[in-house]
């Protein structure tokens, strides 16, 4: 089943009178329960692509449909709503709120989804249990290791039961051991039916996925399955 459909997406910036094509006519289709990596050197349009898929950015032109919803015509609050309901973000730098406990960090997307307190706590605890942090729920980010912080971030991404999990260099700030542990979690999530999109420039990490899309100068230059 098709989840995401991008059709001739352009993102054009005007930098000092010069036209910069961050995305230059991208077509991409992502199905349910795919495990996809987006790769490319810096400046290839990788980040713009991620922002586009993550509904943080709107295309200059082109059609973007997410489960049949037309993202390219949405306004700010509709974009916020679709991010809240359908997308779980995992960032390279974790981006947890430093003054909030792990549990509260995971709870925040549910606050924005207007879910009641008891239900929120239950869902947030379950998400933390599923990433193996049942004994770290009330710790603050600065009391957790890098790997644990990223697991909190994954729990936060999962908690709303999103359609896709969008991870931007999720192991970039971790040592290789913690990195592989995080990748194992993604594997499990994929196996249990989630759709995962990784953005990375590391081949090692991309190998965990089943399909690699390579970008260069804003264009898709290759799109092929991973041989295992």
């Amino acid at each position, binding site marked *: 089943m098709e989840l995401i459909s991008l059709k001739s997406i352009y993102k054009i910036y005007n930098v000092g009178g010069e036209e910069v094509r961050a995305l230059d006519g991208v077509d991409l289709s992502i199905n349910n329960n795919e495990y996809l990596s987006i790769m490319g050197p810096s400046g290839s349009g990788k980040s713009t692509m991620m922002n586009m898929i993550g509904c943080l950015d709107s295309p200059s032109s082109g059609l973007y449909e997410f489960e049949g919803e037309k993202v390219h015509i949405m306004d700010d*609050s509709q974009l916020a709503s679709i991010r*809240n309901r359908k997308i779980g973000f995992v960032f390279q730098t974790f*981006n947890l709120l430093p003054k909030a406990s792990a549990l509260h960090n995971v709870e925040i997307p549910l*606050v924005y989804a207007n879910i009641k307190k008891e239900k929120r706590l239950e869902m947030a605890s379950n998400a933390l249990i599923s990433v193996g942090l049942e004994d770290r729920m009330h710790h603050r980010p600065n009391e957790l290791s890098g790997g644990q912080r990223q697991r909190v971030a994954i729990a936060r991404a999962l908690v709303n039961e999103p359609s896709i999990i969008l991870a931007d260099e999720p192991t970039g700030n971790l040592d290789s051991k913690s990195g592989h542990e995080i990748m194992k979690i993604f594997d499990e999530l994929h196996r249990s039916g989630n759709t995962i999109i990784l953005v990375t420039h590391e081949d090692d990490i991309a190998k965990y996925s089943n399909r690699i899309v390579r970008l260069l100068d804003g264009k898709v230059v290759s799109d092929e399955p991973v041989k295992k």
Partner: protein
Amino acid sequence: MFSLFFENLKISLIAVFANKIKSLLTALGIIIGVFSVTLMGTLISGLDRSFESSMSWLGKDILYVSRYEWFSDMEWWEVKNRPRMRSEYVNQIKNLSKYALAVSPVMQRGASLSFDDKETRTEIFGTNEEYMETISTDIQQGRFFSQSEDRNGSRVTVIGDGIKEAFFGFEEPIGKYIKIDNVKFRVIGVLEKQGKFLGLFSVDNQAILPLGAYKRIFSKRGWMRLSVKIPEDKIEEGLDEISGVMRQIRGLKPSQKNDFAINQTKAFESQYNKLKLAIGGTGYFITLLSLIVGGIGIMNIMFVTVKERTREIGVRKAIGATNGMILGQFLMEAVTICFFAGIAGLGFAYAVSLVINQFFPSTLPLALSVFSIFISMFVGVLSGFIPAYKASKLDPIDSLRYE
């Protein structure tokens, strides 16, 4: 919506209490503003109360006829040249006026009172038997003197509660003889306790004598005023009529100005209202100024906060906060600071009002307290809005990249 409200409240509380010193300094203007407005309200309420009770002592339905106006800028020699009041006027006014319910002449001087070995200096009053109708105080013990006692020049006196306390304590004062400037007077009554007039001097230390005896013993020609009681709903008409009657008594031609003055408590009221306006005006000015300064301080600190937490704003937007939710969060933070500032200002004002209360009775008005809290929260909304709006419009991608 409720969960979002509480979430925002929680964020705000954490932010406010995480930086206590910063929050305190930020809120100082608001604290001072609320402090000054509520303290001013306390002062005015105290003044009001003491003024009201003092005014009821004077009586709203009494006209005071004498040589001088209470509050006037007339030259003293002009007043001095006016003819004195005379006790004959009492009957003349009674005959000519249809509004006068009671007319009482009052002469007054200082005198020394003694009983046994106790002695005190106080004011004595000479008046007639209708005096009690022109004051709002009652007799607590004994009786007032009669018309015949006045005419006979009987040496009887009605004393204030203060004199009774000082001379007799718990003993029976009625029938005892006290000395007024070494002349013996028999105590026939005691006035009820009245307290202080305008919080300034006690009116309980006085002795009232029949005018006949007063004139014979102390002075025939002293300063005198007439108290004229008129019906409460006919003050204006009474004033006109008494003025006409006095002109007639004095034989003034239409071209001549009044050579007497008719005073009433209204004169005190307008004087008092001027004072109140001055206190209130100063208070509101200080309040307004400190609220403006405080508001600018809050706005400034909120801009800094938004800048510091740009990345947090990006994260929140990425996980689904709408612009409105971000706006609400920062607005709530500004309002929270101002709310606590208001409470703090109110707390200080309350503490100071307890001290003031030691000197004259006053209370912190509840309505004004609630109002001042709302005002400070309103300042929070005003000064928090622009920074919060700026936060809400931040681009999530740029914010997530912000270092």
